[in-house]
């Protein structure tokens, strides 16, 4: 913009003689723009774009931490197909995602609708958001103490009311994945509530008013106005939380000791990747597992975007 505005002055001082391509490439604005972008671009290429590309190429090698390894084609991927530990980790992770996503999304959506209908209080929204301020790791430890068999209040109450036989081993092999899903829901539902809430604020009130005049019930209002108009937010929340859930790691690291416990019940995909890479130093094979998860995440995102037709809004 500015170049054009001051150009009449510059033209009179002979700049006109320079060819157009030089004017496009060499002027103060371009120079400053590149200086402004340089650090950010350097960081992004070095620590985001390049590692991803290198990750793909590593996955075709037998690299370790100190040895570059040699190109072995699809061998890592073939190994993946018959790797029992990998299959196990996929099943564990899938179970976690299937429990976590519906729970988290339904609670977040429900709370957002309730808040938007009942109150405008920032304090209530603040309280709902509060768990997000604590790291996943600490949230897991907090809930470990609440769900604990001996010291936890839930089992304390169960024992008091119904006797010792009613106590539940929330953290044992059988229930630990469900507990992890609940713990994650507790931390993230509030954040998603605020996203849904912001989306709800964008729906014009007249829609509800006119539908209510026609005698629509609360449920009909929700089904035919709220849900369809909330679709873009819904897609965003679902895509990000599904991809995030498949990468569950922090909570699985602390819920059992040693990490991945009890009895290997929380050996999720990401646990497997890091244990291959940083304990066994099989960098090539570990990146092959990561690349499989990467491809799978992209596929899930694409399917969700198609399913919900995210690019089409009903608000028009």
């Amino acid at each position, binding site marked *: 913009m500015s170049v054009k505005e001051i150009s009449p002055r510059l033209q009179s001082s002979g700049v006109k003689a320079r060819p157009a391509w030089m004017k496009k490439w060499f002027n103060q*604005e371009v120079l400053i723009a590149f200086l*402004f972008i340089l650090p950010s671009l350097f960081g992004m290429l070095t620590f985001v774009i390049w*590692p*991803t590309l290198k990750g793909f190429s590593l996955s075709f090698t037998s690299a370790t931490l100190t040895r570059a390894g040699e190109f072995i084609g699809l061998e890592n991927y073939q190994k993946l197909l018959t790797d029992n530990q990998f299959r196990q980790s996929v099943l564990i992770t899938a179970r976690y995602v299937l429990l976590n996503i519906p729970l988290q999304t339904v609670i977040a959506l429900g709370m957002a609708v309730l808040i938007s209908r009942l109150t405008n209080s*920032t304090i209530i929204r603040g309280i709902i958001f509060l768990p997000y301020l604590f790291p996943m790791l600490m949230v897991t430890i907090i809930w470990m103490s609440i769900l604990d068999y001996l010291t*936890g209040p839930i089992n304390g109450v169960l024992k008091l009311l119904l006797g010792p036989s009613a106590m539940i081993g929330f953290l044992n092999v059988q229930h630990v994945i469900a507990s992890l899903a609940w713990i994650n829901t*507790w931390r993230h539902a509030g954040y998603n509530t*605020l996203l849904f809430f912001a989306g709800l604020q964008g729906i014009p009130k007249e829609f509800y008013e006119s539908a209510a005049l026609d005698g629509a019930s609360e449920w009909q209002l929700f089904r035919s106005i709220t849900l369809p108009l909330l679709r873009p937010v819904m897609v965003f929340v679902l895509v990000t939380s599904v991809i995030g859930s498949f990468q569950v790691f922090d909570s699985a*690291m602390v819920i059992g000791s040693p990490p991945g416990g009890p009895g290997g019940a929380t050996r999720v995909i990401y646990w497997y990747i890091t244990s291959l890479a940083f304990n066994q130093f099989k960098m090539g094979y570990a990146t092959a597992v990561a690349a499989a998860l990467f491809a799978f995440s992209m596929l899930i*995102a694409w399917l969700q975007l198609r399913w919900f037709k995210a690019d089409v809004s009903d608000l028009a």
Partner: protein
Amino acid sequence: MATTASITPLSKTQPVYPRRRKINWGRILAWAVLILWLLITIVPLWWIVRMAFSTLKDLLANPASLLPVNFTLDAFKRVLGLASVNEIVAQGGFPQKLNFLLYFRNTFIVTTVVVFVGLVFNSMAAYAFARLKFPGKNWLFWLYIVALIMPTILNLIPNFILIHELGLLNTLAGIIAPGFFGNAFGVFFLRQFFLSINKEVEEAAKMDGAGILRVFVSIVVPMALPSLMTMSILSYVNAWNEFQWAYFAGGQGAKEATTVMTVALAHFRAQQQSGTPDFPGMMAGTLISAIPMVVAFMFLGRKAIDSIKFSGYR
């Protein structure tokens, strides 16, 4: 459920009002559900406090007590490294010296550098994308969009190898490096913001002969200050809570000098393989590390809450 039961009978007394109002049962039920969720949110947070000020032995004896059992600061002394190993064992803790002041310092250094240096680089790049003209601009911005939506699953291992090759493994610099130059989200978010502010002030300054640098530093940045503040608090929370990279780049908790608080807690937990873990100790550590974030958040209040909006598209 308990809340529903305790609130609904109250509303039966409503006809006390002079004019008879129809009782809106739906509304009462809605409030009950909301309050129930608020309780589920708050009670665990109280539980941290309650456990941090108790001893493990007393907790085992009174699992359902709502207040700290035999109020004590032992757990805090333990995690701050003020108790001797003998005292720790006597208190039923895990016999390992912890030093949360050191971990706090490490977290503080890493987080502050990442957030503030990152913010400077992010806002510079964002301004260039929002206002300046240069060849290849759209193409470069697409690269940022790709970086933004691409899963980062593959980055961990190559970044680890890179840091290893640079000799930065198990140093704070190695933990800082990937975040040092900012991130695609920050650039994207700030670019949106710069696009939304009025151009006229900038143009007027340019007419008066101010250079691009001058316009950026003394006009755009001051105008953007509230947004930059909100954004830096939110990224402060994220960086403060970061675990995975700090864990692997900082020596998996075995190297005290590069252990941040989240890693220290995970390591502390991993050491306790049998019996009931030292919950009071872990809760004391959690409190020490979480309080700055909660305070920062309360300080920002409404602004931070309102800033969490759906910004996925456009």
